[in-house]
């Protein structure tokens, strides 16, 4: 009697390709993940209408012109020198506020360079003045 022979149905999910599927998805997410974190120079702007009277001796004027030349307290200085100058001045007066004033035509790159130098000198009190309008 051969009729009795039943076919046993396999009810398992094939798992041999599981690793391949997972690999595929893994590669997809590896490629789409953007690891690069946004980096930059942080600054907190003052709220509108907030003005403070500051003693003149606590202010250091830093001017940047349209060509990217920097002037600190009436003296022209090189961009990489800002750090040392500000560091020295901060040692003398820890309450020093650096007032950065730019020309309306100053390139953003120069402005960032100046901010970078100030940050490297650990100057925390930075004031951004309105650019000169012409």
């Amino acid at each position, binding site marked *: 009697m051969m009729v009795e022979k039943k076919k046993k149905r396999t009810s398992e999910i094939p*798992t041999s390709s*599981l*690793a391949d599927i*997972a*690999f595929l*998805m*893994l590669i997809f*997410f*590896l490629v*789409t*993940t*953007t690891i690069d*974190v*946004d*980096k*930059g*120079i*942080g*600054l*907190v*702007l*003052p*709220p*509108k209408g907030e003005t403070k009277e500051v003693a003149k001796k606590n202010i250091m004027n830093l001017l*940047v012109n349209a060509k990217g030349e920097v002037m600190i307290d009436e003296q022209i200085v090189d961009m990489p020198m800002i750090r040392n100058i500000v560091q020295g001045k901060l040692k003398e007066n820890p309450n020093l506020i650096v007032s950065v004033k*730019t*020309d*309306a*035509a*100053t*390139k*953003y*790159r120069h*402005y*960032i*360079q100046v*901010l*970078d130098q100030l*940050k*490297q000198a650990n100057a925390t009190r930075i004031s*951004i003045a*309105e*650019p000169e*309008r012409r």
Partner: protein
Amino acid sequence: MALKFSKKTKAETGIPTASMPDIIFMLLIFFMVSTVFKEFRGIPVRLPAAKKIEKLPGKRNVAYIWADDRDRVSIDDKFVEISEIRRIMDPKLRDEIAPLRVVSMKIDERARMGFITKIQEELRETGGAALNVNYSTKTASN
């Protein structure tokens, strides 16, 4: 003469692959969780370089403002007028799920300060977390 000592033991050289799917799954789940899809790309800008830079706290609470050297501003993939910034940033600040914490400024290094100040003035008008500005830069290679 039975030379028995010549019998070498065969070392097993196969890497066990039974746990491979588990390891892959672990990696997969890690990348699935950590992936943040780029929502928009902004406008092509050449970022300036700086050394003393800090990381942004994440990508979910950040608003991006793009500005290039042709005095164009782009927020959320749309060109906007400077006067519109306040109107766009306001709902972002009040968002209950992911309130704005930082404004990332992606500004071209050739842009002019007069134009950038106008954007900043508008952010100052907005107030709150919009005052937390991060000037996006590249890492300077000494």
